[in-house]
């Protein structure tokens, strides 16, 4: 080989390098621009592949039909798996990170039929095990916090995220020991706006110094497994009123480290408090009691034993309660069936419509059968319907199902080409 050839070779390899670098631009398929409606549905999707979870947010005017794709489409927003809507215009996404501070982000409906970021990104250093909306702010809370050497006072940390102030977040830690007067500490479950100035939260009690285990849980053994407490807090996190009863156990949907809300208001302002009977030591069956509008105590005349409605499947347990219409609520149940080896954890796999006035319990028909272990995302309720994302492991694409509370029937709506739909919501321009 002579020098000429060498130069030729070098030139060739340079050309090869250049040609490969030339294919640099990588715009996916064009985002299908359109003008947004004033109000659209928000859809949070997730793709879980090759050990990586990535998230994409979509907007759509119609959730009852059709198909959406995230190929070249959607706001990339990975890891935000909790979506809360403090106002009509804003969705707040939260991301919990192991060992590192959690992060939050705000989104809104963009002009081109898309979801756009709104307000500042935020950092939330404390974990959260329950959350909700109060006075147009997102409130998150976690219990079981100790301070320094003092083991006899257990605290809870709250974060208030205010979209009206560029997502300014305020952290508050309060002592949640002995709120019930029996010396035990409380972990809060649910943040449910009650009236203009207060929100309700169910108290999950634990003995001081009880072994809380290490599953990320902040509660341990209680001496009062057959009692339920609901506290009303004002914006300064002072307890303005405490409701207590002994007909059901504590009111919280326990799912691993999370405490889902099982308190919900009906159309007339009566508050229904559901207990899934999570505590193994409780002798009380799953049931519902009620605080009538304006009352200072639970309605002693109202009680409904939900366990009796389950007939053969007494082991079925619910996690969340959603008010849909009038006296109609939807509960998500884990019904007893073989666990899906493709799922990491056994989750809720069936929905039930309960009429708290008539005390009528109906399994929702028209959903994928619970034996197929469908996975539910966060729903929204509107016009007597519950729009709930359903993802399956049996080959079908994830879709939003529309549950009609009156008929307890469900229909398949919008389908999305992704691994799962984690949440639906609604956003206004």
């Amino acid at each position, binding site marked *: 080989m002579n020098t000429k050839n060498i130069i030729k070779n070098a030139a060739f*390899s340079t050309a090869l390098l250049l040609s490969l670098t030339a294919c640099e631009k990588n715009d996916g398929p064009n985002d299908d621009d359109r003008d947004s409606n004033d109000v659209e549905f928000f859809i949070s999707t997730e793709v879980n592949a*090759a050990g990586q979870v990535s998230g994409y947010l979509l907007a759509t005017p119609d959730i009852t039909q059709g198909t959406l794709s995230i190929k070249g489409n959607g706001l990339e927003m990975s890891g935000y798996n909790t979506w809360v809507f403090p106002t009509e215009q804003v969705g707040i996404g939260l991301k919990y990170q192991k060992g590192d501070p959690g992060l939050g982000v705000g989104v809104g409906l963009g002009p081109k039929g898309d979801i756009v970021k709104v307000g500042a990104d935020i950092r939330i250093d404390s974990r959260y095990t329950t959350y909700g909306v109060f006075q147009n702010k997102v409130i998150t809370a976690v219990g079981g916090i100790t301070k320094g050497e003092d083991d006899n006072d257990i605290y809870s940390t709250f974060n208030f995220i205010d979209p009206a102030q560029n997502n300014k977040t305020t952290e508050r830690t309060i002592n949640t020991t002995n709120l019930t007067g029996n010396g035990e500490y409380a972990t809060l479950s649910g943040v449910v706006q009650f009236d203009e100035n207060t929100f309700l939260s169910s108290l999950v009690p634990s003995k001081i110094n009880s072994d809380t285990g290490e599953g990320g849980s902040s509660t341990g053994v209680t001496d009062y497994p057959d009692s339920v407490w609901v506290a009303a807090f004002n914006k300064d996190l002072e307890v303005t009123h405490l409701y207590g009863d002994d007909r059901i156990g504590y009111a919280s949907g326990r799912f691993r480290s999370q405490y889902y809300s099982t308190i919900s208001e009906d159309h007339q302002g009566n508050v229904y408090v559901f207990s899934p009977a999570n505590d193994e030591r409780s002798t009380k069956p799953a049931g519902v009691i009620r605080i009538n509008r304006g009352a200072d105590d639970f309605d002693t005349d109202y009680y409904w034993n939900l366990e009796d409605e389950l007939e053969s499947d007494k082991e079925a347990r619910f996690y969340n309660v959603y008010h849909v219409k009038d006296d109609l609520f939807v509960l998500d149940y884990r019904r007893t069936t073989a666990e899906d080896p493709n799922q990491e954890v056994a989750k809720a796999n069936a929905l039930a419509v309960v009429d708290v006035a008539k005390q009528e319990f109906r399994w929702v028909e028209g959903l994928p059968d619970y034996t197929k272990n469908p996975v539910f995302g966060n729903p929204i309720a509107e016009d007597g319907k519950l729009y709930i994302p359903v993802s399956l492991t049996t080959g079908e694409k994830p879709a939003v199902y529309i549950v009609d509370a009156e008929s307890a029937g469900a229909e398949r709506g919008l389908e999305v080409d992704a*691994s799962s739909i984690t949440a639906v919501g609604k956003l206004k321009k």
Partner: protein
Amino acid sequence: MRALSTKELLSCILIWMFLVPSKSWAQVEEGNRFSLSGIVKDESGNLLDNAHVSISETDMRMDTDHSGAFRFDVAAGTYTISVSKVGFSSEERQVKIKERNSVIEFVLSEAAYTHLEGATVVGKTALQEVRETAYNVTALDAKAFHNTTLDLAHLLNKSSGVKIRETGGMGSSYSINLNGFTGRHVKVFMDGVPMEGMGSSFQLNNIPINLAERIEIYKGVVPIELGADALGGAINVITNKRNKSYADISYSFGSFNTHKTNVNLGYGAKNGFTVQLNAFQNYSDNNYRVLTQNWNPEDRTFSNDSVWVKRFHDGYRNETIGIKTGFVNTDWADQLLFGITLGQERDDIQHSNLMKVVFGAKERKSNTIMPSLSYAKRDFLWEGMNVRVNAQYNRNYNQNIDTSAFEYDWYGTAFRQNDGKVGEANNTLAEFFNRNASVSLNSNYQINEQHSVAINEVWSTYRRNNADKNALITETDLAHDRSSNYKNVLGLSYKFNYDKKWVSTFFGKHYIQHVKGPVNVGSTDWPKYEQGTNSSKSFGYGLATTYFFNHTQLKFSAEQAVRMPTENELLGDQLFERANVTLRPESSKNLNLGIAYQKDIDANHAVYFDASGVYRNVKDFIQRSITPRAGEAVSMNHGKVQNLGINFEGRYYFQDMLTIGGTFTYQSLLNKEKYEQNGKQLSIVYNDRMPNQPYLYGNGEVEFRLPKLGVQHDLLTFAYNINYVHSFFLHWESLGSSSTKDIVDRQLSHDILATYTMQNGRYNLTFEARNITDQLLYDNFSLQKPGRSFAVKLRYFFM
């Protein structure tokens, strides 16, 4: 290209095994050939092994054995025999071959050190020997960079197919990306001993380059001598082996208050007694400027716009000392060395895995104690049988400290935390002990010139537990975190050498693993942990073959490689990781095809090219996915990944004065998993490029050497480097609106180096300017690396 099935691969091997030997026996019977034999010595009469001997008129070549001897079978005639060895000047002699020949004696004189530095293509250095094996291997000559301030990790970056990804400046964590494989799939060794457990104060990114002679990078197919369940390849750092007294002392100072010192001293007595000391120190403030969103601790919001700030809490220091003593070149041992390495490290943590999440007080401390023993002997029981034993124990102590009552914005302003809160991320003083031990035995036996066999056995164990339970403060710490792992890798290989022109190796590896750890047998709310165990076995095999002709070498290698699941993947960690005892080993079919060409065109010009194509097909990927909201992870066998790539390396040499070279890597790394993890649904990212992986990169270099500048034995060297990495997406390329996607931008940077070497390399002065155009450089999304920096290195070398 389609993957070879196990059956096909096996039948291939069988066919080779039967066909090949019968052909070679026929060859031996050819007549009219005479023996040409000789020995090679140095000036003091020591026999030199591994000297390279070649006959110019033929393609014949071989290395001298342990007694300095070589032997060829040739036809009658006159031949030019050249002999070379690294560190010695080459010799050439014409010999007339008759029926009966006397033994020819070559005496090599020691080369002036500058000859080593000038990377001329003469003789066959150890480097070339490695390159010429049948494996898809890149050998990097560390010696050529001994005057630079590089650490081993940055040297690795110069290889094709390799990308080192750092999270920041000195002391930041790094990962090795080897042809698309990363993390647990790539194993790193030092002189054949696994570096996994060696502790963070003795890792590739802080070991100075002067400790190494070369780095061997095995891509895809890994020889049995490196006994490990490496799915994607292995890296072996070969340290300097000088059997005499020497001193290599250097100090460098550079931007961001960076200081590095390295002292290498060795003493060798006539009776073989030797003492070697290696000590190094690294320090940096890492206070380079970064462009980031600022954080307002009062509002707990990030600014929308990015600002330029100086890193204020990223200091790093590390001190390590290693001593080895024993005997070399005695009757009973070629090497018997006892060693101990002590290291310590302190690292300020400036931010989390996103740069905008800033910390101002978090830190990490660690220390390491590593005793070691190595023994090697040739002709151990009988002639041709070589034995090597390595034993190593590592004890690492780590502490994470996050107890500040303050939090900080990016300007370094401290804000007292609300409600007496302590800790910026996760209030902790957690301490951990890791303990590792490994013993390896390697033996090979040369049956005759054509056949040799080798066996390699590695036994390793790992144990982790908390050092101080009282230091656990938060519920997210692990109170009974204790797990252990025992692993045994047995490798067997057979090598067939046909006339030194065609060399093939067949090998098999057997893995046994036994893990122990806590498993939750209670419920989530009231967990109860019991010691769980899991055992598994696995088998891998492969072949590597190479053929030499006309300055050209062809290579082919294939391996069915496996990686065993780790104890964390199998048993979980009680809190964040769920156990999955049903995990299978990951496996990969690795194929490599390569061609190398090396020629001294004439007295002035020389070239070297190496191009290889790689194919990887990985299945049963162990994937870790996080369950939403619970924040818990679980590992599952899911996923297939295919990689088709090319690696290219080329160099041109003009005399001793100029070298132009470069490397180039392109890999098409595709997700080949058709279905979703959760069942039968068709995956939307089937055939999509794997996310967060650099796939197109390269670097180039030009080096000018101006010898005899003013003074006879002085040398002035100028070097220019260009580094390029193509942009890549953090998440799936095809998903999401392109304007909203997280991306690691294209990286293009330039470095300039100048070295003045005096008295044949005894005194060296180097000036470096890196990233001279002050580009924003990132290896990982949002984690900015240093901008323009300067350094000066002073080095004294004596041997």
